[in-house]
């Protein structure tokens, strides 16, 4: 039998209701006042980090999160900007504690880590933690995670679908003491700056993370000073019970059931065979178990998923379905048990490559939601685009000729739900980043965006229609360009699925169209392109919900009027002939 790693503590037997008076006089109001100060403190940390960060990926694409933890390392309050960071810091913190037990912490210390095999996500995501003290006692921990532009490795930006091992993915940092009593360990920063492509930006971003942590320490100290350390600790403890209670109350409303489904990756990033993600979801009483037993072994390429990232995907999916409004802390994870078989792609053995873990993370979230949709269709939606279609090209500045890397990720359609159409053209599930503006592209690189459009008829049909995918066409203007493109969901069998009789979305695809009109399809690949050659990326539409014959005429007319559904499709699928 395989060894398994079980993420998340054992569920409590019963939750403790609020209000409740124990040794501290904390009623339902004092709790809300102090807890909202902690939530605001996490938001303030986030604004400090965003303001002082150096690189666009952090400042503009907002790929970072901040959190406050109690002295035991439980997440108390989090300001997260993308769901991929959900709960991820808590996992890292547990690994940190193994190497540096909290009783060894001193005021002014700071800890740094990114190792996917020690609680990390992928190497570009750096965690920084600092302990917060009040009158000599540890009262909590401040944490930040931020996606750095580059951590070294063979590809610019560190990520690669065909990476064979973690050693191709740049600098791996196990938990280390970045600062001791306010003094930064220069040996560590020297090693970092010597290994990354943009050392200045990296150090600027590390300083921003540290500034946010220090800010959080100050706020925790002020709160302890204002209300007493005992009150602060008690509110932290109760906040966990509170979120747990909310989750369990919702879980209790849902019928007991289980479902096992398989989701598929198009391939492993190196070969051509689909890769299975097998998930059993079992909801019983106030608990829910997500079991990955049966999921394929770790893959040869770079899309393996470290446990911290797999857990984030699970939490994202469960939270969406159970209670999207629950305050984010360790308490909401208590009802959830995740089983990640060791050596599988969701808990790979060292040294499997993991830099493009977000492609598989999206599919994990999708697969859990699919299982839940079989049990609770009213709470879920049809399948959403999870292909993460992206492009990275080495280019040059059109005027001064300096080398530059173009990076772009395209969104797609969301799944339709029991009372509405899926949203067209958005970044989905665990991601939420911006598209590259066409003018920025042509101003900064020797590449032109020729068009950016919604793809008509790409959304799955149904009583409610799936959101539409995006078609973007890039044209090389000068010089020979080399780059890579990748997408998932190009296989029609794995396109966004319909629900309750709805149709599936149109699959994604990427084509290279040569100047002379010759076309090459590629779902993941490296290319060489000459001036006049075009790269066309089409992302998937979302799945439809319900019988298309039941779609309101008004919506069909509107879709046809707006060209989101063609007249032919209206006639063929919806049985509506529109003339004139």
């Amino acid at each position, binding site marked *: 039998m395989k060894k398994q790693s079980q993420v998340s503590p054992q569920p409590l037997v019963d939750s403790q*209701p*609020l*209000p409740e008076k124990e040794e501290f006089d904390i*009623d*339902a*109001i*004092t*709790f*809300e*006042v102090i*807890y*909202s*100060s902690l*939530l*605001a403190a996490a938001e*303030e940390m986030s*604004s400090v980090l965003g*303001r*002082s960060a*150096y690189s*666009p990926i952090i*400042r503009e694409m907002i790929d970072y999160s901040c959190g406050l933890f109690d002295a035991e390392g439980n997440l108390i309050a989090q300001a*997260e900007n993308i769901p991929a960071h959900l709960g991820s810091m808590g996992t890292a913190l547990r690994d940190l504690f193994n190497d540096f037990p909290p009783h060894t912490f001193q005021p002014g210390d700071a800890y740094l880590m990114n190792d996917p095999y020690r609680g990390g996500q992928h190497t570009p995501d750096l965690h920084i933690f600092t302990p917060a003290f009040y009158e000599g006692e540890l009262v909590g921990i401040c944490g930040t995670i931020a996606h750095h532009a580059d951590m070294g490795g063979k590809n610019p930006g560190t990520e690669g679908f065909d990476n064979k091992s973690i050693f191709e993915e740049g600098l791996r940092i196990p938990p280390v003491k970045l600062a001791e009593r306010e003094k930064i360990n220069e040996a560590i920063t020297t090693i970092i700056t010597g290994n990354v492509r943009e050392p*200045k930006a990296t150090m600027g971003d590390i*300083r921003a993370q540290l500034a946010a942590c220090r*800010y959080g320490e100050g706020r925790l100290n002020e709160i302890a000073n204002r209300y007493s350390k005992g009150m602060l600790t008690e509110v932290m403890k109760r906040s966990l019970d*509170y979120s747990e209670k*909310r989750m369990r*109350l919702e879980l209790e409303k849902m019928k007991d059931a289980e479902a096992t489904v398989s989701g598929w990756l198009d391939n492993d990033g190196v070969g051509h065979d689909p890769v299975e993600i097998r998930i059993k979801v079992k909801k019983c009483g106030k608990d829910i178990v997500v079991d990955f037993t049966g999921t394929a072994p770790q893959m040869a390429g770079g899309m393996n998923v470290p446990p911290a990232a797999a857990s984030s995907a699970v939490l994202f999916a469960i*939270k*969406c379905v159970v209670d*999207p409004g629950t305050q984010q802390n360790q308490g909401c994870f208590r009802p959830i048990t995740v089983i990640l078989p060791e050596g599988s792609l969701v808990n790979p053995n060292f040294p499997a490559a993991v830099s493009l873990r977000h492609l598989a993370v999206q599919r994990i979230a999708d697969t859990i*939601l699919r299982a839940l949709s079989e049990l609770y269709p009213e*709470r879920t*939606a049809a399948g959403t685009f999870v292909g993460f279609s992206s492009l990275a090209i080495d280019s040059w500045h*059109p005027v*001064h000729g300096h080398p530059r890397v173009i990076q772009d990720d*395209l*969104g797609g359609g*969301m799944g339709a*739900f029991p009372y*509405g159409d899926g*949203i*067209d*053209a*958005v*970044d*989905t599930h665990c991601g*939420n980043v*911006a*598209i590259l*503006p066409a*003018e920025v592209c042509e*101003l900064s690189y020797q590449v032109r965006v020729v068009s*950016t459009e*919604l793809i008509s008829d790409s959304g799955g049909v149904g009583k409610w229609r799936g959101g539409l995918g*995006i078609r973007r066409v890039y044209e090389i203007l000068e010089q020979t360009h080399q780059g890579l493109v990748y997408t998932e969901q190009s296989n029609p069998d794995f396109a966004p699925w319909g629900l309750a009789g709805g149709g599936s979305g149109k699959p994604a695809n990427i084509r290279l169209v040569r100047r002379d009109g010759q076309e090459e399809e590629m779902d993941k690949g490296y290319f060489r392109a000459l001036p006049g050659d075009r790269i066309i990326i089409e992302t998937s539409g979302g799945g439809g919900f319900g019988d298309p014959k039941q779609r309101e005429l008004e919506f069909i007319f509107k879709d046809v*009027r*707006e060209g*989101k559904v063609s007249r032919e499709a209206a006639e063929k699928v919806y049985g509506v002939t529109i003339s004139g």
Partner: protein
Amino acid sequence: MKECKTHNEVYVVMNLTKRDLKTEVRVGIDTGGTFTDCVLWRTGEEPIVVKVPSTPSNPAEAIINGLERLCLQAGIPLADVHFLVHGTTVATNAMLQEQWGKVGLITTKGFRDTLEIGTQMRPELYQLHQRKLPPIVPRNLRMEVTERIDPQGQIVQELNREEVFQVINEMISNDIESLAVSFLFSYANPEHERMVRETAAMINPDLYVCISSEVSPEFREYPRTQTTVINGALAPVVRRYIQYLRKELTAKGIGDKRLNIMQSNGGIVSGKEAEVSSHHLLLSGPAGGIVAASEIANQAGFPNALTFDMGGTSSDIGLIVEGKPHIIQGTTINNAYPIQVPTMDIHTIGAGGGSIAWKDQGGVMKVGPKSAGAIPGPACYGKGGMEPTVTDANLFLGRLDPDHYLDGDFNIYPGSSYQALEKLAKELDLDVERVASGILEVTNANMAGALRVVSSRRGHDPRDFVLIAFGGAGPLHATALARELGIKKVVIPALPGVLCAQGLLQSDIRHDFTHTEVAALEIADSSRIESNFIELETRGTHLLYDEGISPDRMEMQRSIDLRYKGQEYYLNVPIQGEISADLLKVAAERFHLVHKNTYGHAAPEEPVEIVNLRISAIGKIRRFENSLQAHPEAAISTCVPIKHRPVYFNGQGWVSTPIYRRSDIRLDMEIQGPVIVTQMDTTIIVEPGQKVYADILGNLIISMEG
């Protein structure tokens, strides 16, 4: 009586300056949700203030009503009003209610969906059942024409005029009310957009056409297109309103040229110009308050201030740094649409006096975001509200006077507040007092959090700021917030309820122009930049001239957006004088400094890039030196409380608290809290341990302990 002497001195100085002026009558009118506030200023006279009920279906009615009442009190005919400044919510309401005009959009081939795709980010992270606000122009009214311009402004593909002709005709047959045009790189070469406008004028000269190279000539196609579309969508609404208002005013003898409108940037424009710059009016209402607050902050010697304007359903937080309202170059409206227009940095939170307290499923008491609004309103309004609100808590705790709410013009029912609070207290198993005081605690914690985020976002520590509180409920909560945030002083202006109207009379005329010019600063062509600046200034001069501003009162403020090469976003840096390589170097130095202050670090060795050139064309309006002073008679009146009332203070319980009338507060005395000061439009709480005094400008200054 040193203060009184100072007061007289100021008065003398004022008289000297007044000699140069002919008698002028100026009126500021601010349309609010419930009341329309009107202020009339005359050379050498006390201001006259009138509040009339707003008339949402036709806001102009309340304006005429207010004007008539002001003039009646002043004993002058309406025609004597020389200068009328109006803060309007007509654009704001159209935006909030999404009652846009029917606008068509023409784009470069391949880009009609830019408006709909936007940034591709979704509104909610964890919601599978979510919707996105629909694009302001539906897809069938977004049409494409063949044309392409490159980043340097070179034409790659000529505009196909036949297509233009066709799509405009098709849009007109679809009954569009206005037309927006946004082509790629039009900021670098507006030729094609102008050609479309000419074609449209040939087809239908009455059709309003806005082009992105004029509305928002900055790079990045999505925000530029969105801003242009918002202009197009607001224009029909704003035009109808202003034209109607001008007609009404003309009929009353107030000519066309006397109407001015407040903009989001804190400057005013003529009514005529406002018709075409409708997207500048989205914060026309609150902007006046911040302008007035910044004047007060400067005069009172507190150049750094946070402003806090709390109303019934929402609260506005503003930032004044070094005596000036903080201006940002763009913002997001309706949480969905970016708009590139210079705007006061105002942060609105959905919490106010009407916010409802409730028990959530986890057993915790929450306040808001649901609000009782104006109808049914708080339980104490007796209009059917059954749930306890912030106002009910204030009333129950003795902080509001049940007999003199809004000067007794308005009946309230404390019994209903009690019932609503009691119901929640039972659910929470707490006593009513605890629930009422808890509602204030929770509300203040939320507001303090928002104030902290607003200041930390811009790199400031709230403890270095004073808090200027206004609006009906601002002064009720300000001292508790200051205590929470470690702010040392709270300033309550003389007329906190009509501050926005007052600010309308303290604003200069202002037009902003932008030109995108991306270039490395080190090798930039100074003469080309100079000529581009001059072109922008010429446009500003013409506009100001049309508005009747004489050249000696015109001021052109140049500034330049800079960034480190490789950065996406920029910072705005002022630049004065004829552009030369040396002057650009000075601007770069300044940029490093601003970058350090804003972001915490700078990189002086990195190359700097120019992004945009900006001009603010200012038409200076002659100030009435602050005539809103403490009433001179207050200095001689006997300052005694009108009564005592038990008021609940956290940690102290019920305390018999003296209630003063604002007009009785003398200049030379300092009163120890707890104190409540009442005036017609607000109630001011001074907590135990705090002190309050009136300064010679008529402000109440409350200082915290220690």
